[in-house]
């Protein structure tokens, strides 16, 4: 029997085996890290207000940029996903029998998240677009 020299992708296997709970776990972690990294910067940029209007308005002008506005959209998405998925985690941890309904709860998280992101993406996308045209 010939020895296969190269491994196929499937030989490595998937770390997460595709279970939805494992995807929500990694999204929860990634969004959490993104939020805390933003928070580090945001506390500092807000603190600049203590140096008066000239300093603060100069710092806050960094947000007057369509690309930064898209990053902000990502931030809002991260906060919403982390919150909705956090409700799911907390519910299951405080009421363990709910684990029977984990699939329904996971679907609910995705539906509520996508449902709320549709109008938010429209509104914030329009703000970024108007800024680009200005």
């Amino acid at each position: 029997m010939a020895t296969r020299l190269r491994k196929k992708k499937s030989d490595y296997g998937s770390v997460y085996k595709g279970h939805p709970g494992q995807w929500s776990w990694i999204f929860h972690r990634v969004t959490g890290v993104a939020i805390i990294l933003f928070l580090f910067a945001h506390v500092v940029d807000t603190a600049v207000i203590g140096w008066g209007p000239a300093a603060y308005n100069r710092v806050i002008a960094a947000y007057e940029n369509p690309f930064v506005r898209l990053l902000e959209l990502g931030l809002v998405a991260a906060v919403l996903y982390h919150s909705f998925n956090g409700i799911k985690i907390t519910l299951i941890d405080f009421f363990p029998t709910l684990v029977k309904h984990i699939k329904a709860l996971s679907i609910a998280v995705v539906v509520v998240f996508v449902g709320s992101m549709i109008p938010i993406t429209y509104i914030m996308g329009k703000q970024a677009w108007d800024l680009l045209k200005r």
Partner: protein
Amino acid sequence: MATETPTRPTSPTPPEVPPSRDRRMGRERPVGGFELWTWLFMRISGIVLLFLAVGHVLIMHIPDGGVGRVNFAFVAVRWQSPFWRTWDWMMLTLALIHGINGLRNITLDYVRRPGVRFATNMVFYTLGFALFVIGTVIVLTFNAAKWPGSV
């Protein structure tokens, strides 16, 4: 159609059912001590932050042109109200502890060498504490009257 379906050979010893703790439904949780308190804190602060942080990002990004309207005058008017100062300070405190503890959980997963893990955590604790102090001082001492005519 009379073929018999071959039965799977049963394992010689039936699997032992572990004692009661493992039979409980749901996820693993810390048994006690510091880890149980941080576990509880993450969930309680999470519920509070659900209102504080989600409310904050929506208020700041959605109405009246979103972040574009935020400037010195906007914050000065907002912080005339003790309500918003309390909101912002609670959010600052809970989000920092929630976030730093989240980072601590991540270093527990990925940073294996005890010395490196300790150092990594200390960097996060120091940064978190510094930001808590800076944020608290600003929220408590900000006074727009220092810049007359700016609001």
